[in-house]
């Protein structure tokens, strides 16, 4: 029994690599996902995930690294949403939504123009965590470190921003600057994560663990740690299921993360129903 839980990772280098890459992604997502959930930027995270597709497609056409293209796509998305929300009276949601389906469609258009790409499209959309290279893992490790560092240094303005952008400003922290920084962190996380679970599913691994953690956390630092642990567990369970059941790894990981969320949500409601709230002191 124990054997089938550990053996896949000890016997196959690609499984060990996938687990390591997945854990790195989980840490980055735990940190950034927490602020994304608290700041109410979930939709933006989703949009960035899809927005990177044409960037990746163009990079592949030109023979450039996919991450470079993804970064360009994420940046275009951030600038695009910022531009539209400043210039028009449309809500940020509408602008983001329109831009992201547009980017998604553009990505598919680019990919479909080149017939050799149909397999690539699947890999971009759903990831290939089992084919991850050492070089990519180094980039992931560096990115995770940078994300953690920025989160530590900017903890106060991020916290104030989640509480109220006005309070951030009257405390001397520019909400516009730190909001942009937060978007860049989300973009970075999406860029280093899309190879593991794909652009279509990255949203799940970014938000599901943080959302699960938010159900039970009373402090932000707890939420980050719990989210990272849930993410790492999702990666481990997802990889095992994928290995034994011959299922697409990226989808298995995302599915695990979302199932954990709904189980915890149900658990919380059940707990509240069984244990009536204490009367106010």
């Amino acid at each position: 029994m124990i054997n089938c839980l550990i053996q896949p990772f000890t016997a196959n280098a690609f499984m060990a690599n996938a687990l390591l890459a997945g854990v790195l992604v989980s840490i980055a997502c735990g940190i950034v996902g927490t602020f994304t959930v608290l700041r109410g930027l979930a939709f933006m995270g989703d949009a960035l995930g899809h927005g990177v597709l044409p960037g990746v497609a163009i990079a592949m056409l030109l023979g450039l690294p996919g991450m470079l293209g993804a970064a360009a796509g994420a940046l275009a998305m951030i600038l695009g949403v910022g531009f539209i929300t400043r210039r028009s009276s449309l809500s940020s949601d509408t602008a983001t939504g329109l831009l992201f389906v547009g980017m998604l469609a553009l990505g598919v258009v680019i990919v479909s123009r080149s017939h050799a790409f149909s397999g690539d499209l699947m890999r971009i959309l759903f990831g290939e965590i089992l084919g991850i290279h050492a070089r990519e893992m180094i980039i992931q490790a560096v990115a995770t470190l940078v994300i953690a560092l920025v989160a530590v240094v900017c903890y106060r303005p991020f916290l104030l921003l989640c509480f109220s952008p006005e309070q951030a400003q009257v405390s001397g922290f520019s909400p516009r600057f730190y909001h942009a920084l937060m978007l860049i962190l989300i973009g970075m996380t999406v860029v280093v994560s899309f190879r593991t679970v794909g652009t279509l599913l990255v949203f799940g691994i970014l938000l599901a663990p943080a959302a699960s953690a938010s159900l039970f956390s009373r402090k932000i630092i707890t939420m980050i740690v719990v989210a990272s642990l849930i993410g790492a567990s999702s990666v481990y369970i997802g990889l095992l299921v994928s290995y034994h059941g011959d299922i697409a790894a990226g989808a298995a990981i995302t599915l695990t993360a979302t199932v954990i969320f709904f189980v915890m949500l149900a658990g919380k409601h059940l707990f509240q129903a069984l244990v009536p709230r204490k009367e106010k002191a």
Partner: protein
Amino acid sequence: MSERHLHPVAVLARGLSIGHGRETVVADLDFRLEAGRTLALVGSNGSGKTTLLKTLAGLLPPLAGAVEVLGGRPLASPERVAYMGQFHPSSFMLPLRAIDIVRMARFARHGLLGRLGTADEIAVQEAMAVMGVEHLARKPLNTLSGGQRQKVFLAQTFAKEADLILLDEPAANLDAPAQAVYRRFVRKCAQAGKAVVVATHDIEEAADYDWTMLLARRVVAFGPCSEILTPQSLMATFGIVGQFQEGRLLIVEREHGHQACGEAHEGPCKH
């Protein structure tokens, strides 16, 4: 310079026009508020109270004219100005305890990484004690009632130990004892040399403060509350007709608010 030291001016507005983007809400404001004084901004919804507070806090740029806050432009010294807005939309879901909210007030003094010290902890504890929420310190914010949360936000504002305190309808959600507590604390702040500006609908509360500014998208009147509250000024501000009897305001007749007619006006409005 020496004159400023003798009479420190907390707020000085000259020909100040305030508003959002291109829309002017109040034009040509001229007033000064000295340190140690309290000012009530009174008016109905949309009269310009919040716009003026936000301009003083540096959240909205002045549209014209000049405004000086504590001797500089607004936001020049964030640690010396405290602002409490009306809405805290996302505070519901934040995994924070009451004390974490109050501690945020001290961030302005320490920037990104400066450590919070004993003085900060004392300020936080004192502010929570003043508002009577010290027993809620470890409770998650989302388990508190609306009134308890409002007290926590007030404690946050007071914990900043600012020289200029800007409060936007702080009495909303507060029961009578809590209102009395915060009004006593505002007086104490003024005695300690701080300037306080409060936006309120409550004329009786305004009577507590040194100055009252009646707003209806223009300054209807500015002065000590007892002198400027006349049937005419009330009519222009709220569209009500009232009179003072034995120090209490009696509303004799109520007309439509100024907003219903679009512009501020002196007489009763007709639809």
